[in-house]
């Protein structure tokens, strides 16, 4: 694996290996000084053509804990506004000596295109509706570690609720969860499901009530308000009534069930209950695990010295 553009190229064993490395990273993160020299002298550039503070900070934190140098490029303050092309931007930064690009773009396919313009490692931090592979990996990590299931999701039922059609998170998660053996149900109105169909092995339900009583993981997606404008759902109230997690539904969740959300949450739309009151909420654990999993990805792709994981940075 040279780049991480989509989860499609990963098999269950490779996903398992990354999760195992993430266990090491989680241990590092639990130390008083959570920093190791594994990627010292390496440069990781976060190139965000679309704003995403939390994903960018998560990657940068991950890079810094491995002692990599970081640089940040954000579209709003860049020469893109002066007409510079995407390709010129990547080639320019590449010439400064970048070992890994972490790329976020509102257009599907951009991270793949970037691989043609640089010899550096490219990591997809979210492209359009296409893929968000590190999110799916951190979610798999969160689920398997919460249940103590090793690197498998066999026997687990994961319901992904909300706007599947426009969600890169859903595309990556469905792929990874199915590969790890989970039973996955996409819960959405047909207007928010991809018109060309779902990946093999994913079932469909059209109301959260169909899954809430028996799922092991309730994975809530963010419902964007602009979906109302394009006649995909009539109004937020009706969406919440069919697909929102409210206290009554939360009470029906099996006791062991997890509630997850990739963030940022839309309180009052899909989340009608305060997640801090839900014993099964893993939403903050997802954020913490995000750093560990991204450390694992950076470490694996940049071929850091395993010895560098063993001691604190001096």
């Amino acid at each position, binding site marked *: 694996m040279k780049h991480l553009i989509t989860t499609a190229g990963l098999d269950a064993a490779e996903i398992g290996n990354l999760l195992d490395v993430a266990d090491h990273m989680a241990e590092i993160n639990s130390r008083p000084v959570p920093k190791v020299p594994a990627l010292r002298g390496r440069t990781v550039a976060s190139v965000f053509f679309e704003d995403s503070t939390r994903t960018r900070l998560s990657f940068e934190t991950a890079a810094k804990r491995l002692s990599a140098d970081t640089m940040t490029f954000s579209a709003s303050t860049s020469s893109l506004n002066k007409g510079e092309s995407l390709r010129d931007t990547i080639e320019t930064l590449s010439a400064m000596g970048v070992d890994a690009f972490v790329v976020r773009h509102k257009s*599907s*396919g951009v991270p793949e*295109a970037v691989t043609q313009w640089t010899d550096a490692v490219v990591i997809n931090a979210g492209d*359009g509706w296409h*893929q968000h592979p590190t999110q799916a990996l951190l979610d798999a990590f969160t689920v398997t570690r919460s249940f103590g299931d090793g690197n498998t999701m066999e026997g687990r039922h994961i319901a992904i609720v909300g706007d599947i059609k426009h969600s890169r998170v859903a595309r990556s998660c469905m792929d990874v969860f199915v590969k790890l053996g989970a039973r996955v149900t996409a819960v959405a109105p047909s207007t928010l499901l991809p018109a060309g169909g779902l990946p093999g092995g994913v079932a469909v339900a059209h109301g959260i009530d169909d899954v809430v009583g028996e799922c092991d993981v309730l994975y809530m997606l963010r419902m964007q308000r602009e979906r109302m404008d394009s006649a995909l759902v009539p109004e937020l109230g009706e969406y919440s009534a069919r697909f929102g997690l409210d206290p009554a539904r939360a009470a029906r969740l099996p006791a062991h069930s997890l509630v997850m959300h990739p963030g940022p949450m839309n309180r009052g739309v899909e989340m009608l209950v305060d997640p801090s009151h839900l014993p099964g909420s893993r939403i903050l654990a997802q954020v913490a695990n995000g750093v560990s999993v991204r450390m694992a990805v950076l470490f694996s792709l940049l071929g850091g010295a395993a010895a560098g994981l063993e001691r604190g940075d001096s």
Partner: protein
Amino acid sequence: MAQKKRIVVKGGTVVNPGAVAPADVAIVDGLVVEVGQGLDGDDVLDATGCHVSSGFVDLHTHLREPGKEEAETIETGSRAAALGGYTAVVAMPNTDPAQDSVMVVEFVREQGRRAGLVDVHPAGCITVGRAGTALAPYASLAAAGVRILTDDGNGVQDPLLMRRALEYARDLGVTLAQHCEVSRLTEGAVMHEGSCCSAMGVPGWPALAEELMLHRDIELVRLTGAPMHFLHLSTAGSVELVRRAKADGLPVTAEVTPHHLALDHELLAGWDPVFKVNPPLRTRGDIEALKQGVADGTIDAVATDHAPHAAHAKELPLDQAPPGMLGLETALGVLVTAVAPAPERLCELMSWNPARIAGIDDRHGRPVAPGEPANIAVWDTSEVWTVSRHALASRSTNTPYHGMELRGRNRHTIHDGRVVVRDRKALA
């Protein structure tokens, strides 16, 4: 006198309606003067192993001038056309300014004359500025020689306006050509709506968006009796709709592009914008249905939809890149490679039918016979060649066939009695 020079195309097989036979062709002063055996002349073109037919006519060429000369000019596009075996092209009106006025139409025609490589016939617009709100001045355009009108790139959305356009055009003997696309169904669309686009996470272009407008317009033809041509059909459903309309005796014609006969939507999986085109590449099933339509006569013409884009304009993220691909220099090869029609059928698709649809069958798509205008293509259906985007005459390089091996290539082109392409090389 140089004009009186006798050109002889020697050793080929002449293709005429109902007659495919070996013969030499002699040309003097812009006219075919003799077709027969053992002819000689001042300038002999070797046609051994080739077919000799009326020059090809492209119903659907984007020459980009005026407005986007960095992508193509009328001269570079004319050269690409001549190399492809074309002696006439219909220049699509989505220029800037659009070809909705006599002034612009005459400019395009004049630039074509200056280039002198093919006849450039500007299409007019159906609506002013292709904006879909007001009828363009068809009578003035017709008086300036326009025979076909289209808003290509946009479908005419308003059914009332489309009805009026057909009624008004009917009196003037001009043909309307529709780009069938209900735009509300294709907002933001990047590629065919199907399994591939869903996995890639890009908005889809459903077959329905084409078929819905096609169905509406067939019914408007039934109502008004005005003839109509349908551009670049891309779906199995569209072929069936046209097949039924023809069975009902309606005056409709239809074209298909070479790329919709050869390339499918899965090519987009590599995210290369060179495969982005409108209408989009479809499924293998659609390709088979289009081929069937070509075979049974439902489809009248193969038209390139030659759509040059400068590299900097095309090399964008897939959702932002403009649709369109080059076609003039590869059309014959793609058609022969993908469909391999018999020589007569090939001439119907590439020359005779499009000349009639374009209303230029007084000078193009004619038999190769004494007294006829010498617009001639000499082409070899057995030549195997590899397309290189760097070896095309077009100013742009956005061919989807780069590196691909094609069978079938044009060898010589004679336009108006003048050799404009000799042994695959165009005149400077």
